[in-house]
């Protein structure tokens, strides 16, 4: 359809105008036809679908609000300083005496132990993938594929892995070599060490991805400048690149911690205990855990009504922990992105 711009459009021509109305206008002998810039049907279409997707968004937010609100409302009365610092000595189902200190301690301990393992390995792997690996080499693709796969493995399979590898293979062999002839296994049984290692394997992809994001955001010019001044590649990485990527590494660590604090399936067979008389003192002890406690209270409580307050309070404690960590990570990441933009 050619459009000769030298001549104005024919009177009666207007996008979106139906034939009938066009005839009516012509019949009314109007010389000039008003311009209209939008056809009504498109606008309705747009509004409907925008509304639909907006509704989906609002629905998700509403569900989130309901969950958090419900837990907050039902759990807040149960939270008190006593609750957070008492142990469950005799009766964890007793509303007046129950406390969650051992669970908080157990969760914190296994998560801290996990970061000691996962952050160095994750950062080094990310450095390799960004700074040393060839983009097209098959090795690089296999490593990346492996990281993606690790991220997708079901959490219960990690539990099985912890049991089959760390406890039954490494633990038992450690017992065989370090304590031959001993009747009771020491390393070859569920322990906080094995649970932490299992969680470290599980959260490795999180740290790697976050660190890589930070490393890639650093402009190439910085590395070139350092090299042109006579620094070696390793010096450049250690002194310029990694320090600049610290916020990203921090984000990865916080996200890993948040994820691991909430996971129950991997620790079911690798170290979580229903009840421990004392806090875990050595690497081979078992531990109590917030998430596991919630599970037990929900499914095996003798009197559901009585333990409801404790249950909700424990859930609130766990949610506060993970959500606070997530929010902190989001802030750190946003700040890092802003600072990176100043570099470009």
């Amino acid at each position: 359809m050619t459009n000769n711009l030298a001549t104005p459009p024919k009177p009666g021509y207007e996008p979106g105008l139906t034939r009938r109305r066009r005839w009516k206008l012509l019949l009314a002998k109007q010389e000039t036809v008003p311009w209209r810039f939008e056809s009504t049907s498109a606008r309705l279409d747009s509004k409907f679908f925008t509304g639909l997707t907006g509704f989906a968004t609002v629905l998700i937010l509403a569900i989130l609000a309901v969950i958090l609100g419900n837990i907050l409302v039902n759990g807040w009365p149960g939270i008190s300083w006593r609750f957070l610092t008492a142990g469950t000595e005799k009766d964890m189902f007793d509303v007046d005496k129950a406390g969650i200190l051992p669970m908080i301690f157990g969760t914190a301990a296994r998560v801290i132990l996990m970061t000691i393992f996962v952050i160095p390995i994750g950062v080094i792997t990310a450095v390799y993938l960004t700074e040393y690996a060839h983009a097209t080499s098959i090795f690089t693709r296999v490593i990346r594929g492996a990281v993606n796969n690790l991220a997708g493995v079901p959490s219960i399979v990690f539990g099985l892995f912890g049991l089959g590898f760390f406890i039954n293979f490494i633990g038992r062999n450690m017992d065989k070599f370090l304590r031959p002839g001993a009747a009771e296994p020491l390393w070859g049984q569920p322990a906080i060490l094995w649970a932490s290692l299992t969680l470290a394997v599980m959260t490795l992809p999180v740290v790697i991805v976050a660190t890589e994001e930070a490393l890639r955001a650093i402009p190439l010019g910085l590395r070139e400048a350092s090299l042109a001044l006579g620094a070696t590649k390793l010096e450049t990485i250690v002194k310029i690149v990694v320090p600049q990527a610290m916020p990203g590494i921090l984000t990865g660590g916080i996200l890993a911690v948040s994820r691991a604090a909430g996971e129950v399936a991997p620790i079911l067979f690798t170290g979580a205990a229903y009840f421990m008389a004392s806090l875990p003192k050595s690497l081979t002890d078992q531990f109590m855990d917030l998430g596991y406690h919630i599970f037990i209270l929900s499914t095996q409580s003798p009197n559901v009504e009585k333990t409801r307050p404790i249950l909700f309070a424990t859930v609130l404690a766990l949610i506060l922990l993970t959500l606070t960590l997530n929010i902190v990570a989001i802030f750190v990441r946003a700040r890092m992105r802003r600072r990176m933009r100043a570099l470009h």
Partner: protein
Amino acid sequence: MTPTHANRTLGWTGIKRGHKARTLEWLAEKFIFVVSLSAIVMVFLIFLFVAREALPVALGRMSSVKAVKAIPPEEIGRLSQAELMEYLDLTPAQFKAMPQEALKDLMAVKVEAAAEAPKDKDAALNTTTWSAMLKPYQWSGYDKPEYIWQPVSQIQKYNLVPLFIGSLKATLVALLFGVPLALGAAIYVSQLASPKTKEWLKPAIELLAGIPSVVLGFFGLIVLASFFQSITGSDSRLNAFVAGIALGLAVIPVVFSIAEDALTSVPRAYTQGALALGASKWNAAWKIVLPAAIPGVFAAVVLGFGRAIGETMVVLMASGNASIVSWNLFDSTRTMTATIAAELAETVFGGHHYRILFLIGALLFLVTFLSNLLADVVIHRLKNRLEGKPA
């Protein structure tokens, strides 16, 4: 064509060290490389050690036949050492530690057990073979062939089909509920919302990812189930539907993040070109951006599926855990993951039940591994096709 500086800045990879490394640096590089292999090693180890425990069952070498022909103690001389070990189910160390008398006692126990063993034909069935695990069987006392998972009974029944169906039911509900919501939200947040709204909206939705699965399971068990019961008045409070909804809440963040990333990384030039031609924001999003982001969106759904089928705590708490074969979404159901979680603690190390649970774990790993592979391949191919390169 002379490579310009722009080509050079396409990524750090491709830039070599550029100098001969001194010893310390060379060592450091080798160390970094070795540590990076850990990811591959881990995936390999996971599969190896889970499969290792499951191997005897997978190869059909285990037997749960109850009606074993008992050999009387007097005939102990008839069997060789190896045969005796196998008959009595002893390890070499235990075998050596036992005197002859003890061995005879064990055999006497076996004879008694044989006498007590159920006499019906079911006892002669090896329930750990693949056919027993996958095909229906006519058990005595039932009127037609059934798929039954009942490991804790006199004759252990290890059919996996109820578990498969349970997992599929819950996953189906989760995807039907979660994927449309997540995709709709992703389209809205990345294309239709104003930048100011986006700033708080995106983190708010991703906050859903910060809720641990055990809390979602708790929510399903305590809140959703009661709500469901009050609405429908049905008996089974915990069923595939309730678990599926709670599972959907776990799937939404995964699908949302990846889909939103895919939609946002479509170059803005496309959107602006469409808008300049007079398209509405929705039109541009639906006709231009979404098709361009299809690889990422597809990957998001596949990964959501992987997450749903591998999730444990939610289904363990909210699905009712009755292992029956039924396509009714409102029946209590049991998934593969919940089975492993619930039953592993009570198995004998090395026994049939133990190994079959590991087998289920290996199958789960295989399923998620394949779905991840699928997502990767599809992204790679579709992306190349969209950019006009050979697939």
